[in-house]
């Protein structure tokens, strides 16, 4: 069996002299559900932005030996790297089905594009099933509940045939039950994909992470299993220090 992995080597992002990501090196294997945590401003989202081509970066990020950094956003997406955003960004005026169909169609030729969708593509059908929105397929995405929008986003990554899924706070604003469902969904997806989840919710992380990377001030502070990371004094210091500042 071939095992894909996402490998970051010395990734660095600088904004006008401010170093947002400061030489991050990490490897995420297929089947791993990697959580990326850290205080606000640690560079988590910026790291995801760098991998997906939104901000320029130095260093190297490879997936299946293909260099991802500093390519165009849509080219990286076509290489099988998909992401979600902190605020759900589905196409609100289109239906659930149309959202998924668009996500599935980046490789379509002009002839297919200029015709109507005659039948639901099988990958869309199965994604509808996986994310549990089959009954709402003709509903406008704009009227979905917050959690459903996030699931739709994940579904769009699935039909997009992404091998690397970068999820930016997928459970923010979700109810406990929705978090549980989302976590189980990610576990199922994670078997065949490389998943990186940026998250603030520690309970969620403890329940579902298979490994954790802690970022602080743009650097990797600690890496390991949930237990290892929690026991790391450096991590405790960063998080406790923050708690004191907030108190």
């Amino acid at each position, binding site marked *: 069996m071939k095992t894909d992995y996402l490998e970051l080597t010395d990734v660095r992002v600088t904004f006008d002299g401010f170093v947002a990501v400061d030489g991050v090196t990490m490897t995420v294997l297929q089947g791993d559900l990697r959580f990326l945590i850290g205080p606000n401003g640690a560079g988590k989202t910026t790291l995801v932005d760098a991998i997906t081509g939104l901000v320029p970066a130095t260093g190297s990020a490879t997936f299946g030996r293909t260099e991802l950094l500093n390519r165009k956003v849509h080219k990286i*997406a076509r290489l099988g790297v998909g992401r979600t955003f902190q605020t759900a960004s589905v196409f*609100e005026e289109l239906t659930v089905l149309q959202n998924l169909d*668009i*996500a599935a169609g980046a490789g379509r030729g002009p002839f297919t*594009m200029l015709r109507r969708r005659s039948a639901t593509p099988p990958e869309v059908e199965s994604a509808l099933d996986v994310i549990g929105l089959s009954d709402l397929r003709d509903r406008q995405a704009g009227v979905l509940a917050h959690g459903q929008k996030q699931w739709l986003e994940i579904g769009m990554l699935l039909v997009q045939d992404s091998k690397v899924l970068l999820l930016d706070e997928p459970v923010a604003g979700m109810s406990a039950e929705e978090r549980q469902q989302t976590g189980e969904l990610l576990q199922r997806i994670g078997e065949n994909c490389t998943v990186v989840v940026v998250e603030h919710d520690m309970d969620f992380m403890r329940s579902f992470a298979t490994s954790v990377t802690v970022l602080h001030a743009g650097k990797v502070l600690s890496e390991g299993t949930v237990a290892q990371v929690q026991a790391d004094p450096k991590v405790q210091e960063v998080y406790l220090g923050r708690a004191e500042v907030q108190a």
Partner: protein
Amino acid sequence: MKIKGEYAKIAGFVAVALALLVLAPAVLSDFRLSLLGRFVCYAIVAVGIGLAWGRGGMLTLGQGVFFGLGAYVMAMHLKLSDAGPTGVPDFLKLYGSGVVPSWWEPFRNPVVTILAIVLIPSLVAFGLGMAIFRRRVRGAYFAILSQALAAAFAILLVGQQATIGGTNGLNGFRSFFGFNLFDPVNKRMLFYIAASTLLVMLLVVWQLYRSRYGELLIAVRDQEERVRFLGYDPANIKIVAYVVAAAMAGIAGALFVPIVGIISPASVGVVPSIAFLIGVAIGGRSTLFGPALGAIAVAWAQTSLSESFPSFWIYFQGALFVLVVAFLPRGLSTVGSMFTRRREAA
């Protein structure tokens, strides 16, 4: 729901076709029919603007450029064919060197002319689109840029007195592909050609709207950056809509010339470019029929009101625009769906 919407659109299309091809010729005088023919030309431009702006989010304030390109190509052909196989158009003898400029020559050929009417605006739009959308120019910046292009184009035309008639433009056409333009039967035929062209253009955008491309275009309009992360280059998607809209404007300009009998910089500059837009906004920019019907209605109202109250129209136009933007931001053709939505909500 979906099926019902389809039937409503088919019924709407048949109604528009009957009104244009049967009712209007039966009840309107030759003069009024010719006026309606001119409004139909505006409506063809409007259909394209509906595609680019209503569905694609590109507020194009410069469709006069493409309208003008199509119109001048047609006008040059008509002048040349009036002058005979090797003749020189009258105005070139008056203002120019008395010699036909070499770049006029291809338009002696009717086939080249018809191709050029579609291809020149399309190619110009493609080039502009590559330059503009690839650089991610959008929103108000795109609107201003497109308007500046219309202004520049009109100024360029004004400066070319000796080769394309300058401020006077090109006029005094006597025949249209061999048909005498003074014959009322041929004038009616021109109306039928324009009306049929409008119907064909409506079918074209209808197919685009219901295709996968149409769905994708809405996605690009609403969340351009998100589309990028799905593996599409939004610039390409926008260029397609922009080019189709430009081709439609070019065709409309070409039909405008024989129907109205003159094309001049005053019909292609900033003011007409904005006027094209008003009908689209009032009719409903993202709907199928709204842009075309809005364009015809506004132009019709302008003509009839200016006849009775010559200085009053501009206020009426302003008031209508304000009312629609304030209360019906999606245009008059969304009145019906607003009521049904209220009823569903209640």
